[in-house]
């Protein structure tokens, strides 16, 4: 089964060099209707990836730089009294976008963070008793600096759980970095990007992803992985049912991107580190343990 996202992937890979896996994962997250958390050092291309993704799928893009004095109203919008009509009118905040880049989400105070996360979960915002639906599709890409950096409010586990995936970009390899240094400015490249698909195609694709076949043996495997996370000695707690739903959705999207009509264990394995990594907390250090996910894949047999 061919899909219409091959050009999208190719175009993204032209902008983000040497990060095929992460680009594919990001797209996969979008197709699975999940939200994406990018965690890495400043300057490795988090923002560029978000920009490029929005531009190439032809979605309306908004960017909010989170700071320690950002208030919920700055994000969601505010009702302002209009003298002409004598009524309050709601001014839409930047959250009313199809792709929202929440840059450095862990710099904002918890109040603002939770306002965004609520919007992500409910697909709507409520101001002064009136609910305003968010646009379709609605896709949040949050970036986060590593938590040991100064001046951050780490996201609690319950809020991390709202993100379908957490990705690290990492330094590019030598060749990719060289090509990037020698080539055009990324900013210009992003500006030149032409949409390869539109919102309608994306919605259609999302519907197709939902229909990808998931067999009993595959669910057995997913449950085996879940059991392994829950009984692991070094982990505080295992994957939640919501995480498992997310895992299956992401695996479906991955299979769809691969042109298949059914999910195979390799799909689950491909998305598992991204989906499970930020949900597994090490008992000893209290930090998230992305490596534990890889280790689990090596030790859990496929039924």
């Amino acid at each position: 089964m061919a899909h219409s996202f091959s050009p999208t992937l190719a175009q993204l890979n032209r902008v983000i060099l040497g990060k095929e896996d992460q680009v594919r994962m990001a797209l996969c997250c979008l197709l699975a209707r999940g939200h994406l958390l990018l965690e890495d050092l400043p300057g490795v291309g988090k923002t560029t990836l978000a920009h490029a993704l929005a531009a190439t799928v032809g979605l309306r893009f908004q960017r909010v730089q989170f700071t320690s004095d950002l208030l919920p109203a700055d994000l969601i919008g505010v009702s302002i009294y209009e003298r002409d009509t004598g009524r309050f009118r709601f001014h839409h905040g930047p959250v009313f976008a199809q792709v929202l880049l929440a840059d450095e989400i862990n710099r904002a105070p918890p109040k603002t963070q939770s306002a965004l996360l609520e919007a992500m979960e409910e697909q709507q915002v409520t101001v002064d008793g009136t609910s305003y639906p968010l646009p379709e599709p609605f896709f949040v890409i949050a970036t986060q600096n590593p938590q040991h950096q100064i001046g951050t409010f780490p996201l609690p586990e319950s809020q991390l759980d709202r993100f379908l995936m957490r990705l690290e970009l990492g330094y590019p390899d030598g060749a990719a970095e060289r090509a990037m240094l020698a080539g055009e400015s990324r900013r210009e490249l992003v500006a030149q990007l032409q949409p390869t698909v539109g919102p309608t195609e994306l919605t259609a694709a999302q519907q197709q992803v939902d229909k990808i076949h998931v067999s009993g043996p595959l669910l057995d495997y997913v449950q085996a992985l879940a059991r392994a996370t829950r009984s692991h000695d070094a982990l505080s707690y295992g994957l939640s049912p919501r995480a498992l739903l997310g895992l299956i959705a992401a695996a479906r999207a991955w299979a769809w991107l691969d042109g298949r009509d059914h999910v195979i264990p390799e799909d689950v394995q491909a998305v598992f580190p991204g989906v499970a990594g930020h949900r597994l907390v090490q008992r000893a250090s209290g930090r998230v343990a992305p490596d534990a996910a890889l280790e689990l894949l090596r030790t859990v047999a496929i039924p």
Partner: protein
Amino acid sequence: MADHRSLPRNKMLALLGTLALVLAPHLAQMPVWLILVTLLPLGWRAHIAWSGQRLPGRAIRLVLACAMVAMVFLQFRTLIGRDGGVMLLACLVALKLLETTTRRDVRILTLLGYFVAGTLFLVSQSFWMLAYVLMACVLLTGQLFAWQREDTRFEPEEYRRALRLLLEGLPVALLLFVLYPRLAAPLWSMPADRAQASTGISDTMSPGSFSDLTLDDSVAFRVDFRGLAPQRDQLYWRGPVFERFDGHTWLQREFAPASTPTIVPRGRTLDYTITLEPQQRAWLFALDLPTQLPQGARLTSRLQAVYRQPLVNRARFDFQSATDWRIDNQDDTSLSQALALPQGGNPRARALAQGWRDLPPQVRVARALVWLQSNGFAYTLAPPLLEGPDEVDQLLFRTREGFCEHYAGSFTFLMRVAGVPARVVGGYLGGEYNAAGDYWIVRQADAHAWVEVWLEGRGWQRVDPTAVVAPMRVSGGLARSVRDSDRLPMLLRENAAWLANLRLKWDNVIYVWDRWVIGYDTQRQLQLLKKLGVDGLDSALYVAWLVGGFALILAAYTLASRWMPRSERPRDPAARLWRAFMRRLAQRGVMPRLGEGPRDFAARAAALLPGHADAIRQIANHYLAARYGDAPDAAQQLAKALKTLRL
């Protein structure tokens, strides 16, 4: 040289620990300074692994190697043989650690570990050593498994797998043990265990030499009777004969006459086998009186059975004895020596026995026994010390307390004064019946001394003065005949019945081990093969047994491996077919990894077997479609593709 830091630290330390464990029994035999010399590289390597420092350079290693070889040579004056050779091996293993930088080195070290474990049987061939060596093999195999993986994790599962592997190999090992041609004699003589150096009956008898033995409950020998065993009070195990008396000590005669008297057996004939524990002498202990001796043994002129060489290894001997006998043709020198006494001393004893000289010889013996019986003599392990030149007088007329050697010595003295040729016989009396294995255990504590007198027309006959003084010693064993205050091994006392029972059971295990494992030699093998209908190692039937045995084991393995997964055999036909496919690939060396998806596995297999790459990928696709997709005919296609696959 590769960087040793690429080797995971925790695995390296585990390897060091395993090697130290394997070397430990060898080192326990060595002088302390050599232990330290061997442990130095081990400790050094552990430190290096821990701290991540550099390994010592080639020059240091060379100097260390030369120094170690020199030290081993200084200690043993040789680099071959058991002690020198083994020590050299230990040193080289330790040194090899200092140049271990790659996984290949680690594998070599592990294989050396197996070799060292094999040489542990040079230290001891006991049951415990086998258990130790098997444990070492499990640990070493576990190491091989562990180093096969790239990562640094420790997995107990690997030791379980090693154990399973070893257990699976056991039937083949047993078959080879039973059927593989045994050597008639060991390749080299096994030196005796040091522990057995100085136990047993000594070659002289003085007051105290036997009672000391009663504290030693180690086994002297074990006996299997073919047919009914005689009464316990008839179990006189004959050892050295003491004929010369110097006023204090009874000694063996230095120069034996050439002629051996003729034994005319009477009474019952007893057939039995003795399994003798290692000792320093060539003495065999046969039931009074042996009429047929095993190969390599002879009867001395004093009717003691001796072997042609010292019995430093545990050995088995078949005997035949008569319960009653007549002896002819004793040379006159022997008889006159059996009357010899030192000049002077013991006047009261002499006076007593002089009085019997007019009676017939047999009556003199009876008189002496009656005298012993009626004068209040006591049997004790802790008699008062006898001092001065007249020890016999002191015992007979003053202290009146003694042990078997006191009574045997004094009685012989009396007999000689009375003109009856007499001599002291040392050996063992009685034994303990082990119902668990239907055999008798004779311990050092059963050591005993009795008297032989020469009676015209009957020859040497046994007289046991101890039996008169303490009849229970003869019929009931040591524990019943001594006083409670006497020191006696706890286990010989009968109120520790459950413990004694346990010990008998365990003794049986050891005995079976000695008989069937250590004592399994050419002769026993031929006996066993005869039962299987095989005449010799060159017969066709022997080959048939060997091949048949292997075929049987192989068939059992095949059946087991088919049967074992069946318990968890998947119901899904596609999964079953896939499992069969993986088994076929495993035979070609493509092992599935834990947690590896079918597509990844197929990709790896295709890379390893490029000739079948397309077929393998196609099979994997069919399987994935059948198991994870909802294509109804994929399972049939998978079956078809598998049938056409020719690996």
